């Protein structure tokens, strides 16, 4: 059971040079390989800041982040970039597809950044992933010629192309309607199930958060709740816990 993929030790973050504004206060976190973790908390509580640090996009002010045995503090910027490319997948609220490329090419981009050319087996994988998110018929469309929900699904396929150990999703359904939200969330769950990919997903959607393996709640830069929902599922409706945990 103890298979820690991601670990933080007293991680803090403050912004600003002269006027320091602390955002994270001593985060200590261990995430197991294959876990599907949701992160909630009110706006400004530091969710995105923490996620960016876990994703090696930002460096903590103090403390350490260790992912898959690698202490991120020991890596140079270029090494961090390569680490992100190999180990981490990102899904953001906006899809950030490259409109100059086709849907299939967008899925391949994280691979192409370092390899330049995709061999047939990688192309086949990209097509598999597109099939998985139900967009195989759109593969040759320009990335900006498909709907917003479809674009977000392409972004999901893209995040998976390099077999990342962990996927960080910052409000991945934030821009989607409830039907698409459900669809995208089901996809993430099935990926988590099939590939044992670890997920950390920030969301404001309480129902989604409640359907994850584990729930973290942030408040003013601290983790104030850490619930194992597999052992102790939240009652789905009208529960006593939910109002306090989910605001």
């Amino acid at each position, binding site marked *: 059971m103890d298979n820690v993929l991601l670990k933080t030790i007293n991680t803090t973050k403050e912004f600003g040079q002269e006027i320091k504004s602390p955002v994270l206060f001593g985060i200590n976190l261990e995430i197991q390989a294959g876990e599907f973790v949701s992160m909630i908390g009110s706006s400004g509580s530091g969710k995105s800041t923490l996620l960016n640090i876990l994703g090696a996009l930002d460096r903590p002010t103090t403390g350490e982040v260790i992912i898959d045995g690698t202490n991120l503090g020991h890596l140079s910027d270029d090494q961090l970039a390569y680490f992100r490319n190999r180990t981490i997948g990102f899904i953001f609220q*906006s899809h950030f597809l*490259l409109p*100059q490329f086709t849907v299939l090419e967008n899925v391949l981009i994280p691979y192409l950044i370092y390899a330049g050319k995709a061999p047939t087996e990688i192309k086949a994988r990209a097509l598999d992933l597109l099939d998985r998110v139900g967009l195989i018929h759109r593969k040759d469309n320009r990335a900006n010629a498909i709907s917003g929900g479809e674009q977000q699904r392409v972004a999901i396929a893209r995040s998976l192309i390099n077999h990342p150990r962990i996927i960080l999703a910052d409000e991945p359904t934030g821009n989607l309607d409830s039907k698409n939200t459900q669809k995208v969330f089901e996809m993430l769950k099935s990926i988590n199930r099939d590939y044992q990919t670890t997920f950390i997903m920030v969301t404001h959607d309480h129902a989604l958060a409640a359907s994850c393996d584990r729930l973290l709640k942030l408040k003013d830069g601290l983790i104030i709740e850490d619930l194992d929902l597999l052992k102790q599922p939240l009652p789905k409706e009208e529960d006593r816990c939910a109002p306090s945990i989910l605001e």
Partner: protein
Amino acid sequence: MKNSLAFEFSLARRFLEENKLQTLLIVLGIAIGVAVMVFLTALIDGLQADLIQKTVGKAPHIVVTSAEAGSQEAVKSVDGHKVLMIDTTQKDQRPIGEYHTLVNAIWADQRIRAVLPVVDGSGLIRRGQVTRGVLLRGFDLDQADRIYDISNSVIEGNRKPINNSVLIGKDLAVDLGVSAGDPILLELPGQDPLALMVDGIFDLGVSAINQRWLVMDQRQAAALLGIGDQVTSLELQVQDVFLSEQIARAWSSKLPNYQLESWQETNAQLLTALKSQSSSSYTIQFFVLLAVILGVASVLAINAVQKSKQIGILKAMGIRTNSVARAFMIQGVVLGLMGSISGFGLGIFLTKIFILLAGQQLTLLLKPLSVVVILGSTMLSATLSAYLPARRVSQLNPIEVIRNG
């Protein structure tokens, strides 16, 4: 693990392709700039080559005289152009005695294409009421043709004077009212007038020569001037006119008893004029390049802003800073390449049209070096101007982009 250059190229290509109109406009802008540079350079270089050819084509490039001989003025008196402004008498010039050895030595120099021993003197010609001062020039006609091409410039009479006959310039002939076959009287200082026959009349295309030259055989001139088997100067032409100053200097040090003067020294004013003409063309080129730099820099700066979201996500996905910078530098190089190649074609086209319209008096000259300089400087400008926007966009922090959606 290294970044893929192939990916950087495809990124650059897609970015340029996305704004086809913008790309086309900036390429067109560079092309016009390059075309202007090509055209101007061809025009100015052509004019200058023409002018230099006119000045030194049928004139000695280097004149060798005895060092001890008279004043500067006396030395200058042997030069084809300036001679006529300075009236010097034969006495001022010390003849060169052992000129055969000197000629052989100079001939051995591969850079020299003609050596002409010359006997010069001045005298007066009378015919009826008319008196004209002339420059007596004695040289071997065959050898003189290598410099002056007199044989092919004879417009009346014989090409070669036989004994006691001479060739004169066409303006002198008109002044004196003589034609081929007429006699003239030559007076040399301290000698009795001598009757000579005008055997032919030439036109060397330079009025100073056509007015003053009296050409005869070298030995005859030497005899008339009483200098025996000696000459007053050697006139040289070199293979590359622009090296004559350097060659003259090299020979000067080997021949301490002689004085060598190159055409550059005699035509210093002309050269100054040509230089200032060239520098005005450099000024134009500088501003054209400045326009290229500003054009490419602004297009790439706009491009960088437009693409900041995509750059942000690429960086999140692990592209390295240098890789992004290179993708933008490549855009600059490609713009420069397309612009300078099409501009070069356009420039050639313009010059061809210009020749057609202007008639054949104009020669246009495009030296390979000028082409290399124009294309090279354009490419360099485009690349350098891409550098700043490339650097800026590559430093972009992905978090900023992601946070601002």
